[in-house]
């Protein structure tokens, strides 16, 4: 039954492929529909806006240079306003009513997990464009952002070596914060370090006087700040006002939330993060990319890594479709399985790992100074998203449709 369906898809894909190449000459093909779900209002709008812009920029560039397989792209963007129920409603609408060829988007991990079961019931590919807590082993999902083995396995040992073995964690209280804290516990244990405190903060909380004192009581060497959203970011201002003055590390600050642009210096002084993209990268490719972006969106406060990944997602989609000569997920996954899914991104060459469908990234460790200047402390080169493959996720063989964490590993078969 399954193989029958697969065969049907391959045939269909091949037919579509030929159809596409035939009509490239005639240029009368209907456009490819790209469904985009990004928050441009609500609590996360400041992060979501660059994601919409990145997608619009990529669509404009691709359309100008002839589209994908000769077909133009039609971007259908809906704004779920940070509401997971709306993510599901709009996801269904894009998938079932608009019949999009590909679905892209989602900011929080909660929104992604709300969308994933809906995507899994279709044969539409889904691109998640954020860095996240890792572990999703799902054939329908292609992850463009960085994951813990690229962010935490680099950052935490560096912080321990530089500042000491005692860490205090402030994390947003939902799956991203909880699982990221679990990663921190695992890595700290391997390093012989100590987690002297962990505090999970409900989303929307903006007052941190008590948290600041809890931290001072626990006397950590450094802080892991994985608090999320505008309200929780008030922590930095309040900690600076109380002269907390501790080194901080994070997987989402600066390159994602551009707190160093939103707060008055020196609130973010001594913050560290590992990132595949931050606007301060000054390689020629990055500079060229930033110039194109700011020409189209002159008011952009900061090109964050989500917006950058969202831009890349469309080029990755273009590459996959053109190599597969098909818009079917099955055919695109054959390109991924062959290890051919690579694009030349502004950060350098990035490829999709066949086993996990996550993306390799060139990772740099950055630090923020007292005037909020960003400095590259260490360049790790390209790091593969290896963890899922190591623990036994292999999407070329089996579709788990699950999210694994250090304490939730696949069952050994």
């Amino acid at each position, binding site marked *: 039954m399954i193989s029958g369906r697969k065969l049907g898809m391959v045939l269909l894909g091949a037919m579509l492929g030929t159809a596409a190449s035939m009509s490239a000459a005639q240029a009368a093909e209907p456009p490819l529909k790209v469904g985009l779900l990004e928050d441009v209002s609500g609590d996360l*709008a400041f992060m979501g806006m660059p994601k919409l812009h990145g997608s619009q920029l990529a669509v404009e560039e691709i359309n100008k240079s002839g589209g994908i397989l000769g077909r133009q792209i039609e971007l259908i963007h809906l704004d779920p306003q940070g509401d997971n129920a709306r993510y599901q409603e709009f996801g269904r609408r894009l998938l079932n009513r608009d019949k999009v060829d590909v679905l892209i988007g989602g900011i929080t991990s909660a929104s992604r997990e709300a969308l994933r079961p809906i995507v899994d019931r279709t044969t539409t590919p889904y691109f998640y464009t954020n860095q996240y807590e890792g572990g999703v082993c799902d054939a329908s999902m292609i992850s463009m952002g960085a994951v813990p083995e690229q962010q935490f396995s680099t950052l935490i040992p560096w912080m321990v070596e530089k500042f000491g073995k005692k860490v205090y964690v402030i994390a947003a209280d939902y799956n991203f914060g909880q699982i990221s804290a679990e990663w921190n516990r695992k890595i700290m244990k391997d390093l012989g370090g100590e987690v002297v405190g962990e505090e*999970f903060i409900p989303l929307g909380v*903006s*007052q941190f006087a008590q948290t600041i*004192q809890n931290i*001072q009581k626990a006397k950590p060497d450094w802080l892991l700040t994985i608090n999320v959203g*505008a309200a929780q970011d*008030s922590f930095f201002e*309040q900690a600076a006002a*109380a002269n907390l003055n501790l080194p901080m590390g994070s997987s989402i600050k600066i390159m994602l939330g551009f707190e160093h642009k939103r707060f008055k210096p020196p609130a973010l002084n001594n913050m560290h993060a590992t990132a595949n993209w931050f606007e301060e990268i000054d390689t020629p490719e990055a500079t060229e990319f930033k110039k194109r972006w700011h020409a189209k969106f002159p008011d952009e406060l900061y090109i964050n890594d989500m917006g950058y990944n969202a831009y890349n997602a469309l080029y990755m989609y273009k590459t996959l479709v053109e190599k597969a000569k098909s818009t079917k997920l099955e055919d695109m996954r054959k390109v991924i399985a062959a290890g051919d899914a690579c694009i030349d991104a502004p950060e350098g060459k990035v490829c999709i790992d066949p086993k996990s469908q996550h993306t390799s990234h060139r990772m740099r460790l950055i630090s923020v100074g007292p005037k909020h200047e960003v400095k590259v402390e260490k360049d790790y080169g390209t790091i593969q998203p290896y963890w899922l493959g190591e623990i036994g996720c292999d999407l070329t063989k089996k579709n788990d449709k699950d999210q694994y964490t250090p304490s939730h590993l696949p069952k050994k078969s």
Partner: protein
Amino acid sequence: MSAEVFSVFYQFADVFAFLILSAAGLAIVFGMMGVINMAHGEFIMCGAYVTVGLVNLGVPLAIAQALAALTAGLIGVLVEFLVVRRFYKRPLDSLLATWGLSLIVTQSMLLIVGSAVRGIGTPEGSFAIGGYTFSTYRLVLFGCAVAVLAGLYVIFMKTRFGVIARATMQNAAMAKALGARTGRIYAISFGIGTGLAGLCGALYAPTMTLIPTMGATFVVESFVTVVIGGANVLLGTAPAAVFLAMIRMALNASYGQIIGQIGMLVAVILIIRVMPEGLSSVLVRRGR
């Protein structure tokens, strides 16, 4: 040891200030006037944005904050005249109207000002006691909260306007029959309420991230404080804030923010169950 004692006081003062400043305006608009003002958070946001805007223009912070509160108050008078006035006899419709207003304002701010505004930084300094360091500005906030309560006491208990205003809230028809210009009293009271909301935003603006939906972080706390406080601003809102601040502070300190928030809301549910009219009904009855 003294550091621990001071720390407990400081944490209490911090939560208390947050509750009083965010609830004071609503206590007048909702507690006294009975208008369910869903746009309360947007008046707070207005105060914060005006403050930051003025500071960026070079106005000293304290003056910017006063002007921001004034601006929110004047906008409040305007909103009362244009919208709220039509709904005094239809409180549930006023909920809908002000909610609509709130949506329009947040979305317009997003479109006009953008999704994030750069903060201005917290003034004053910090001081250390024992192993702890504290932000001086948080004590300023506490002082402002106490001053707001004192100010409300003077306005509503000691002035002619206060007497007429309380009479109008109690029985508008009778007050009108006795010659009070109730329309103007309502407008001014609403303006004082939104002005206090603006003051709250102005005071917290340096300590927070400014986004168009920032008012939402105050709204739950303010409604909760006013609801369990009941109709009397001084004998209701203030004790309610003391009570909630103690619960929240103790739970925050021992179990973290999640339990602190849950515990506070559970306490609210219990109080509403036992005293549906709020704390002030009990306290006022005792006082008689």
